[in-house]
């Protein structure tokens, strides 16, 4: 799995960070990236309405999560994206959306996974990998972005330290 890009959206759906780490995606204009971020934010919210009306059992996920928190005292997964859009698979890339407790969205775009017809669970395994990566990126974000006195919250992130650390993490 090659990571093409990492984007960060603030809780209003604005694109605050963009790092195209490895080539593989089309370059868009700055405005198009903002539109793209807004689209993902909107679609994410809409898809969480699907789950409610499609009457699919979702208590199980919450129960598992809750019992995890009860037994260990901490939430093992910082991803709070429970019902919204989680991943997109296309011919040229896969895109994953993770959300933190404060509503910041991390978008990770990777090379596509070749799935065989009728296979089961391959994409979910890939999702676990991406979730691990997300945890690491979130730690970097917590260190290098939120502890930076010159970084206002919800504002665009221009931070060389964060850039280099992220690149090191993704390419290791």
């Amino acid at each position, binding site marked *: 799995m090659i990571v093409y890009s990492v984007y960060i959206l603030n809780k209003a759906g604005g694109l605050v960070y963009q790092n195209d780490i490895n080539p593989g995606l089309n370059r868009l204009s700055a405005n198009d990236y903002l539109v793209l971020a807004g689209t993902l934010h909107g679609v994410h919210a809409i898809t969480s309405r699907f789950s409610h009306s499609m009457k699919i059992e979702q208590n199980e996920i919450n129960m598992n999560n809750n019992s995890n928190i009860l037994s260990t005292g901490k939430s093992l997964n910082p991803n709070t994206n429970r019902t919204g859009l989680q991943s997109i698979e296309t011919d040229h890339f896969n895109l994953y959306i993770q959300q933190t407790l404060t509503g910041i969205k991390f978008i990770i775009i990777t090379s596509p996974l070749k799935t065989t017809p009728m296979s089961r669970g391959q994409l979910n395994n890939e999702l676990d990998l991406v979730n691990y990566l997300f945890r690491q990126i979130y730690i970097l974000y917590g260190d290098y972005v939120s502890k*930076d006195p*010159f970084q206002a919250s919800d504002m665009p992130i221009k931070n*060389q330290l964060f850039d280099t650390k992220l690149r090191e993490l993704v390419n290791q």
Partner: protein
Amino acid sequence: MSEDLIIPSISSSVNKITISDTSKTGFGYNPAVGPSSNEITEDTSSILINKRTISLTPHSSNSILDRNLNKKVNEISLSSLSFLFCEIVNWCHKNSKGIQDLENRLNGLGYQIGQKFLELVKIREGVKYSKRETKIVEILQFIHSSMWKSMFGKIANELEKSQDLNNEYMIIDNLPIVSKFINVPKEYGNLNCSAFIAGIIEGALDSAGFFANVSAHSIPKDDNPLRTVFLIKFDESVILKEELRYT
């Protein structure tokens, strides 16, 4: 809509507590509603009042202020330190008129710490082994190793003497801990938040009787982008004193 509420410390009664008005998506942030509410209603408050708790706030016997001063290892969380320092920089920045002023303010805050910290390190070294440094090189070595170690848990990377000026010395740290997570934007020029540490050095030197001006400068190297040089300029009187006494 109702849902089970999580209160980690009560395990048996958890399933009975329900809270209206929370989203179905679990706790946390729901894009459609915002952060979900953990509001405490009448039903839950009685349970909360009756539950047994363990106090986590320090009281007289174990607060940090009442511990033995001589205890050598006093570790604190790097995260809380970074957040505190982040706010200190923000606060100074808000009050300052410019970059130079901001550095002066950070330096001033550090100065007061340095004055007191010198004494603390000396006390911790113990009366037996501790002595008052009288030579420039000795006090610098003391700051470079012992004091650095008790402040940051490591010794500074290098200690150098200027070849051109005989009153200039340099202490070099490849990764100053307080500014580990600070990225200075380009428009702030050569601001270095380690001016705070420079202030600590200055305070310590001054109260040891070596009057000096200390400033912090970023001199990055490839693998150490945050490498910082603390430039120490001693007062002429200090140099004179040293010459009279030891030559």
